[in-house]
């Protein structure tokens, strides 16, 4: 049975996807809002019918009046529900990357120019649990929607559904929009052999040797400096963010190369490289990345880390999408 309907469903999904508004900021209007009774709405209709029957059989005009009031309220609710979505503006703000099998965050902003409150609006990506928000008039709200990732690579959550059943739950108004947001899921870090033999045996001494380095002074913090060397004491004294500089600190650049882990499968290789990138970043050792088709010279800092991880995540996916640095 399902097989029979599958092509129809596929065709209608494609049709809907094509019609779906795309963009980073979309305002919901009558062209984009659908509305249909909920199960509770059908129940309400049943109550109306029962009352009409009672009114009919007992020739009771007041029961009729009560039923007519219910019907009128139901008809008006179509508009109330519609207006609780109409004029709402949803825009993409930013995404937060994650490791595979974790949740990637997509942050969207809901606001409206219309001077009315929006109550109980549910946002959810296709197939993901929803989040309910309410907006007071003139106030915008950022909503964090997360998507559980399965594997490394781009995370495209698909279409975003914005729906509401407010105020009486009789009707559901909804809209599907495509905010064209992408996040990246990095490979899962897996511990593996060290990329540098020196690193392996110097590792044990590292803590010690650094302790033995001579403290040579403070310099102003710049993006890219290791956060472990921030002079917190001076910061607390209000002297600004300073980094401790050690004269003996002589970092040896480490390369993470595709060829360094022969024998491991390519996904495992990427995971091990991810692990080491995190380790080296943590230890304050400069590191570079060399993959087929991309090369990142040794550096350190959160931005570098992100570039490295992104390159690892997108390895093998369309190369023009890779972040070059």
């Amino acid at each position, binding site marked *: 049975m399902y097989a029979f309907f599958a092509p129809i469903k596929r065709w209608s999904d494609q049709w809907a996807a094509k019609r779906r508004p795309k963009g980073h900021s979309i305002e919901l209007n009558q062209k984009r809002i659908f509305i249909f009774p*909920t*199960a*509770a709405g059908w*129940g*309400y209709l049943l*109550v109306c019918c*029962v*009352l009409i*029957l*009672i009114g*009919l*059989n*007992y*020739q*009771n*005009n*007041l*029961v*009729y*009046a*009560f*039923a*007519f*009031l*219910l*019907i*009128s*309220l139901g*008809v*008006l*609710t179509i*508009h*109330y529900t519609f*207006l609780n979505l109409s*004029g709402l503006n949803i825009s993409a703000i930013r995404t937060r990357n994650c490791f595979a099998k974790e949740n990637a965050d997509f942050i969207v902003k809901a606001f*409206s*120019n*219309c*001077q*009315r409150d929006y*109550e*109980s609006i*549910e946002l959810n990506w296709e197939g993901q649990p929803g989040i*309910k*928000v*309410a907006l007071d008039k*003139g106030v915008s709200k950022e909503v964090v929607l997360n998507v559980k990732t399965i594997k490394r690579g781009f995370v495209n959550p698909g279409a975003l559904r914005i729906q509401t*059943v*407010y*105020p*009486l*739950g009789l009707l*559901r108004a909804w809209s599907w929009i495509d905010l064209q947001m992408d996040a990246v899921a990095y490979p899962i870090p897996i511990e593996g052999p060290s990329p540098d033999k020196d690193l392996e045996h110097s590792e044990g001494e590292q803590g010690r040797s650094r302790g033995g380095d001579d403290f040579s002074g403070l310099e102003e913090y710049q993006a890219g400096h290791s956060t472990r060397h921030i002079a917190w004491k001076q910061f607390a004294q209000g002297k600004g963010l300073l980094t401790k500089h050690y004269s003996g600190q002589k970092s040896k650049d480490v390369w993470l190369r595709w060829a360094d882990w022969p024998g491991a499968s390519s996904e495992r290789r990427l995971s091990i490289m991810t692990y080491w990138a995190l380790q080296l970043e943590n230890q304050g050792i400069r590191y570079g990345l060399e993959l087929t088709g991309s090369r990142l010279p040794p550096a350190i800092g959160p931005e570098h880390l992100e570039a490295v991880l992104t390159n690892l995540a997108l390895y093998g996916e369309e190369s023009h999408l890779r972040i070059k640095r």
Partner: protein
Amino acid sequence: MSSGQLSRDAVLWQLFAVGVAVLPHLVHLPLWIPLLVVISLLWRFMAHLGRWSFPSRWIKLLFVIVTGLAVLFSYRAGGGISVTVSLLVVGFSLKTLEVYKQRDALVVLYVAYLVAATGFLFSQTILIALYLLAAFAVITSGLLSVYQLRPKGLLKTFKRSCLLLLPALPLMAVLFIGMPRFGPLWEVGLDRSAARTGLSETMSPGDISSLIRSPEVAFRATFEAEVPAQSQLYWRALVLNDFDGREWFNAQSVKDKSSIASDLGRNGFSYSLILEPTQKRYVPALAYPVVPLGTKLSLFSDATVEYGLPITSRQQFTMKSDPSLKYHGDLDHDQRKRLLHLPEGNVQSKQLALKWLAESDSEAEFVQKVLAYFNQSFSYSLQPPLLGRNSVDEFLFDTQIGFCGHFSSAAALLLRAAGIPARVVTGYQGGDLNPYENYIVVRQYDAHAWVEAWLDGRGWVRIDPTASVAPERIENAAEDVFSTDDGFLEDNPFYAFSLKSSGLAEEIRLRLEAINYGWHRWVLNYHHQQSSVLSSILGSLSAIKLAAFLLVPFALVIGVTVLLLIRKGRPRASNVYDREVFRLSEKLKIKGLSRAKGETVNAYCARLSNVMPASSQLFVSLAGEYERARYAEAAELSGQEFSRIVDQCIGVFRSH
């Protein structure tokens, strides 16, 4: 979506809605049901406060079984809609006990709507209608609270739901006026406990006195023209042809239909009746009625009118009568025999009749003798002594105290014994005229019985023996006559009290009664007025006109509602600078130079200065001032100064 947990406010609203919906039913439900409702609400409320725990599954099961049996036991005699209502009330008060999720709340609230509406099956007063309208708003608040994300306080939720409801009221009125009404799909009866008093199919001495103690309204009548005199208002309901020595009744269940023409003579008049439910078919009518063809009313050869079904709810009829109408050709042999038949017994009375007959020259003289006899030594009382087997003998020669039932019974027997065909007629006499609305209220205490005798050459003649005993009983409304009698209205202390007041109180009573009458006529019995109301609004009726009548207000109300919401929601800049730029853009709209969506003020000013290169300096300064005002730390220009620049800009375009 409907499986979420209810907010605390929503739980309170559920409890409130249930209480409000059940309240009007408390009077007619068996006592244990209100008790159950109170226990359920209290238990859920204590659970809400966290003092008690929710009932366990076993306790709930026990509740269901016990209450189910109790409903069966309470209504083992049957009870129509009452059983349904009490099942609904019991069911949803038990459901309240476990209201926790949104889905539970929906069940409770939908049933609350039903239960509230069925309140109208038991009472339809204006007060109940107002109360149930408020109940509607409360239940709607309950529904609203289920879907509210943030608790806003009970009062705010109620206010919000009233705002939702307000535009629904005119729509309801339109539907009420325009929606076509149909007859019942199947026959339903209100249960016996709700049955009203009415005339009995038989009459034995003492019967009517139970009616006379009731001030309940039997029917209301509106006359198109002048209201006939009190002494002419004999509302004939039932004609009793057979007598068994004590009781008058009808032996034949099938009555002959009348073959009289349905047009009126010169003395005809028409009136409309709003009849309270009696569970019987008879329709009281003034002598002598005709019935228009094509109605559900049937007219019989004894000039009584019946409705096709027992009257279980308030009904309205349009009637026509003509006192000069002749309802008879001649009595045939069988009819005469039936109308003269007397059983054994009551020997003394029969002898007296024969003695008087011998003394009289004509039938009319005999009738005079009978009435004169009653006038001699009889007295009228609502609490007469009880009578035995030969009721007429005992009454005529022994007790000589009684009321209409006794007098008409005795008079009919005397007439028959003298060979004059006679029958007893029961119905109502008189009524209470309401001067504000020009209609007559006839109450149960106006119930009356009299005699019709067949006099040769004159046909049926009405003889009211009670009138010769207590003539004022006939000439004034019953209320005035009986109010000195202890038995009158003794079961209704409040009503009796209101009778004694006079003047202002009386006027208020009449005014209230007039409002009530309008309510009955225009709301409760609207289906009888509908076609005339609609044709007075729409002219001749057609399906298209009716559809337009229903749809146009819907479009209108919805349009206005949406417009109000959208107008309120029109973007309004929060600062004077944006407002001023908006003003400029609006002014230039006619020239096609309004600000594009998403266009910055800077770009807009640049575009304007391209159009008006001569004044480009002005636009540059406008853009600069705007930027400074909006994004610099402190504005250099006040709003007024900025507005002056805008004025200049507008002026540039105006001069061209």
